[in-house]
């Protein structure tokens, strides 16, 4: 089986609009959650979130092209350009058919949907923007990446709610391993901080009015974020042949389904995904130095996830460093796993474990080595990144340094 490596990473997220700034914010434990500045924010129960602020689309795209790009496609394109630049890949007729794109996303082009619905329902208008469909369709960001880089191999968008990015990355890994492609752009993107998107989440009564504090007794729910992260995954021999820098090895991935409940998480399903990723990566329990937890900051997730980590890592569970960076960048829903993989890269490359912010008092039901409030220095050779979605869909990615 072919080994697969990461040769490029790029991002636009609440912590920064590139990899360097994001890593700096993760190192510093900087919280990007704050008051939301969106239309009708005063009619939201909890008008807080982690927004990508200061992002100027006109700095990245000409006006004609912008008409076709919802915010979630803009994020994906800017992130992908950075990843491709870092990988040193340029559009190439020989590479094109051997390269593809699989991104994760949950909501589609929410800004476009929100504006269109406002126009016809609230505004009483009889027409919406002519590009409403190509802007809002879930596969739009993946399609724009293929066009940007001339990738003519397999491409699609994966939608599995909060696990979308990890499912996408796992699928991209499988495609390169199987020989269907040599290079895949993968990761995820989400731009759901719209009035409609936030209202929908509000209905479930799981959103925090105060902030995201996973594993803390004071936690009171999740906080939404937005943004994208995109990675260049490449067959190792392909990367070595062109002398590319290897950021990390995508050692394994696993996907499981709880087959139980549409919203409540399940310990067994989550544990099976972690165990599966270890097996796929040929790693032992004690090899994992860092787990980027799904860590949403809901009571249901955090307790179930900690029990699942104990079940999956057994005797080694107490020794592994764990953090939830959602406390910093919020929950990016379909983009979550991708941005969180950046924290795994930081741990592997720099030996810095990004903290769980806002942890005041540890929940006794989350009795693991939670890295709290300040980053920790520790050599890390292997990481897991967890994503457990509504629908009981779990996907875990294992990275190793070499």
């Amino acid at each position, binding site marked *: 089986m072919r080994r697969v490596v990461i040769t490029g990473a790029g991002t636009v997220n609440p912590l920064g609009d590139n990899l360097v700034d994001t890593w700096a914010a993760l190192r510093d434990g900087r919280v990007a959650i704050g008051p939301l500045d969106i239309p009708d924010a005063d009619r939201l*129960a909890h008008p807080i979130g982690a927004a990508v602020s200061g992002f100027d689309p006109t700095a990245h795209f000409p006006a004609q092209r912008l008409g076709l790009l919802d915010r979630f496609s803009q994020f994906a394109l800017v992130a992908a350009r950075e990843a491709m630049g870092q990988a040193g890949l340029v559009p190439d007729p020989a590479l094109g058919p051997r390269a593809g794109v699989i991104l994760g996303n949950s909501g589609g082009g929410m800004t476009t949907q929100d504006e269109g619905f406002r126009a016809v329902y609230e505004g009483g208008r009889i027409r919406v923007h002519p590009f409403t469909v190509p802007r809002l369709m879930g596969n739009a960001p993946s399609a724009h990446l293929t066009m940007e880089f001339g990738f003519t191999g397999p491409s699609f968008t994966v939608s599995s709610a909060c696990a979308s990015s990890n499912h996408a990355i796992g699928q991209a890994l499988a495609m390169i391993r199987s020989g269907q492609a040599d290079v895949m752009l993968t990761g995820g993107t989400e731009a759901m901080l719209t009035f409609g998107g936030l209202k929908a989440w509000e*209905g*479930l*009564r*799981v959103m*925090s*009015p105060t902030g995201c504090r996973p594993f803390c007794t004071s*936690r*009171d*729910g999740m906080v939404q974020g937005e943004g994208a992260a995109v990675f260049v995954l490449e067959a190792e021999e392909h990367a070595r042949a062109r002398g590319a820098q290897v950021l990390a090895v995508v050692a394994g991935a696993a996907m499981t389904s709880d087959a139980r409940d549409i*919203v*409540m998480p399940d310990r067994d399903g989550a544990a099976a995904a972690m165990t599966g990723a270890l097996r796929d990566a040929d790693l032992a329990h004690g090899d994992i130095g860092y787990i980027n937890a799904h860590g949403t*900051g*809901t*009571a*249901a997730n955090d307790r179930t996830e900690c029990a699942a980590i104990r079940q999956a890592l057994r005797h080694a569970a107490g020794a592994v460093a764990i953090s939830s960076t959602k406390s910093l960048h919020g929950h990016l829903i379909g983009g979550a796993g991708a941005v969180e993989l950046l924290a795994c890269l930081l741990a592997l490359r720099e030996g810095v474990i990004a903290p769980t912010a806002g942890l005041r008092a540890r929940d006794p039901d989350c009795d693991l080595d939670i890295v709290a409030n300040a980053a920790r220095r520790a050599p890390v050779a292997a990481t897991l990144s967890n994503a457990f979605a509504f629908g009981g869909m779990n996907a875990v990615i294992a990275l190793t340094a070499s």
Partner: protein
Amino acid sequence: MDPTMTDRTDDIERSVIAILARQAVRDPADLSPGDRLEALGIDSMGLVETIFAIEETFDVSVPFNANAPEAGGMDLTTVGTVVEAVRGLVSSKAA
């Protein structure tokens, strides 16, 4: 007591029981004030749906966070306590 007030609070009780009965898929006559919502088969998701129906019916906001069910200061454990909680919300809205 003002008789119109009595009628109105009885209306509240009737409406709340109708909402809970619909959620529990039972006849309203089969519900008693002491019945626990869990015993009626109304789980955490059922409670979220019930609260939505209450808010829409009475035009009130129920301070409920599924992560900290006790934090809102409302006792939503039995049919009777839900009726009382709604009475309180409706009367503070009228005040």
